[in-house]
């Protein structure tokens, strides 16, 4: 799955390289900047993968955590070991969290690498029109990857909870991915404006605030708070469900 994610920046970079110049204002944001600066491949790739690819892979990993073991019939053997259910749940979530850290990082680093290979790298123009050096730009890129990690922690907690509900891993994966899509659809309906700040996908695309000068931290803070809330609620739900569950398989 990490390979599939890594393919996104490679595809973008190669497509821009072999095609003619992209006029500004067309296609995803930053696409036209790639030819001037390879580091933007990473930003563009993250932008492209946020709505679907990243939630998809996170949904697969998080949905598989408990339901995967149950589906294979190995869950009860795991519980025979004197480790306790809480610890198993924590370890399972930690595994999903590690993936959530690595996935955006792979997209960012592969993007920066392939961008550096195919395009010139130099000072980066931020959204505010100011310029920062390539080293600082690399820092911003990692910051965005961190932002996406935080963004996806809530979704992985939801996936963990759904995963404790069922013995069919595919069902848990699909339900998690569908939830992330539903959340984004609801987020785009202006009639439901009162609901928007409560949707876990609401701040997903606000990582552009990290590309301003000075950095606007507001969205990062509200995003972290929101994801922390989702983590607490669905973590508690998963705990309640998993502790009381009759494990038959």
């Amino acid at each position, binding site marked *: 799955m990490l390979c599939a994610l890594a393919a996104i920046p490679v595809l973008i970079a190669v497509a821009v390289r072999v095609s003619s110049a992209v006029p500004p*204002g067309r296609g995803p*944001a930053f696409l036209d900047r790639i030819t001037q600066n390879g580091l933007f491949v990473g930003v563009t790739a993250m932008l492209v993968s946020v709505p679907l690819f990243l939630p998809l892979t996170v949904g697969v990993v998080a949905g598989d955590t408990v339901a995967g073991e149950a589906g294979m019939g190995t869950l009860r053997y795991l519980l025979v070991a004197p480790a306790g259910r809480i610890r198993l749940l924590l370890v399972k979530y930690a595994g999903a969290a590690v993936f959530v850290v690595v996935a955006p990082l792979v997209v960012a680093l592969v993007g920066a690498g392939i961008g550096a290979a195919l395009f010139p790298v130099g000072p980066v*123009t931020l959204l505010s*029109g100011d310029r920062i050096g390539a080293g600082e730009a690399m820092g911003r890129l990692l910051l965005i990857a961190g932002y996406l990690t935080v963004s996806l922690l809530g979704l992985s907690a939801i996936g963990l909870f759904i995963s404790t509900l069922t013995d069919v891993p595919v069902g848990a994966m699909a339900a998690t991915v569908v939830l992330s899509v539903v959340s984004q659809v609801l987020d785009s309906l202006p009639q439901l404006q009162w609901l928007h700040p409560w949707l876990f996908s609401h701040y997903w695309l606000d990582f552009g605030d990290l590309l301003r000068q000075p950095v606007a931290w507001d969205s990062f803070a509200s995003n972290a708070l929101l994801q922390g809330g989702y983590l607490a609620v669905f973590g508690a739900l998963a705990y309640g469900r998993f*502790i009381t569950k009759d494990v038959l398989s």
Partner: protein
Amino acid sequence: MARKWLRWLPAVTVPAVIAGGVLAGSLPASAVDPLPAKTPEQVLQLIAQHREAALSGTLEQSSELGLPELPQAGPGAGSSETAWLELLTGPHTARVYLDGTDKRVQVMDRFAERNAIRHGNELWFYNSKDNTAAHVQLPAGAADRHAATEGTVPTPEELAGKLLAKLDPGTDVSVGPDIEVAGRTAYQLLLTPQSAATLLASVAVYVDGQSGLPLGVELKSRGQSDPAFRTVFTSLKLEAPDASVFAFTPPPGAAVKEIPAPTHQAEGATPPSGKESKDARRSTVTGSGWEAVVELPAGTGESMSGAAALLQQAAVPVPGGRLLSTALVNVLILDDGRVFAGSVPLERLQAAAVPR
């Protein structure tokens, strides 16, 4: 069995705690230390004497004018002619930096930003969406620091200045209950037009209790519960921002347009008044105060920019012409080309159009 239910306890308490926290946070914070009571005149004086030369803060602006929302993406979006119109539809967030005559306004769009920077006598505009910049060399001595905001959002201070300049005996001025804005306690100056023949129901200006700086402006129109226009600081620091904020050189690759310095004319904070002042030499005003109707002679319609052309699409046909109706301003475009605009109902515009 009881123990099993006990284990669901966290799943119940965590959402309950979060809900409780949200409720507690959303309750209107009772004024921690209430401001000393002041008469409206004293609050006006407080505004007039404030000397806050430096600040940095975040502005939130929302409008419910009844205009159709312009698409933020797609063909035609973000062109310079329609940019100010887009600023009047939907919500916007902007960061404002002020230091003496230096000024920077950053309108933060998703993955884009519009900048207006005044540094010394240089004026820069930068739009990251199409990577274009515009440069104006102001004549030396152009001291008005509020001249640099065209194409971005107005600050509460500018807006309050414009509105308070309109104060006349036909307006009731009162001081409402204290309000908390951006973590500061503020006076609420309420302006209510006495006349029933204006679309404007009331204006609220939030005035910082300590410094007298206007922190927010809210315009309410008749028959609409949501404010028609509202701009307030959500965070504010009354200290000089870093000097590097005002230093701007256009990034390489950006298309830079050199604009000759404007002859002295008031730049409108809100487009309607901007249009009025631009054509002030040729327009006539009937009525006074909040019910004033501005008449633009025939021919102004021909010089319509892209924005005005867009506005015309939103206009509905009425007897004798077309009406562009918003919550705060009505614009009547007659078939013979004359244009009547004012913050009044359609009937008054038509009445103003008849005698000539």
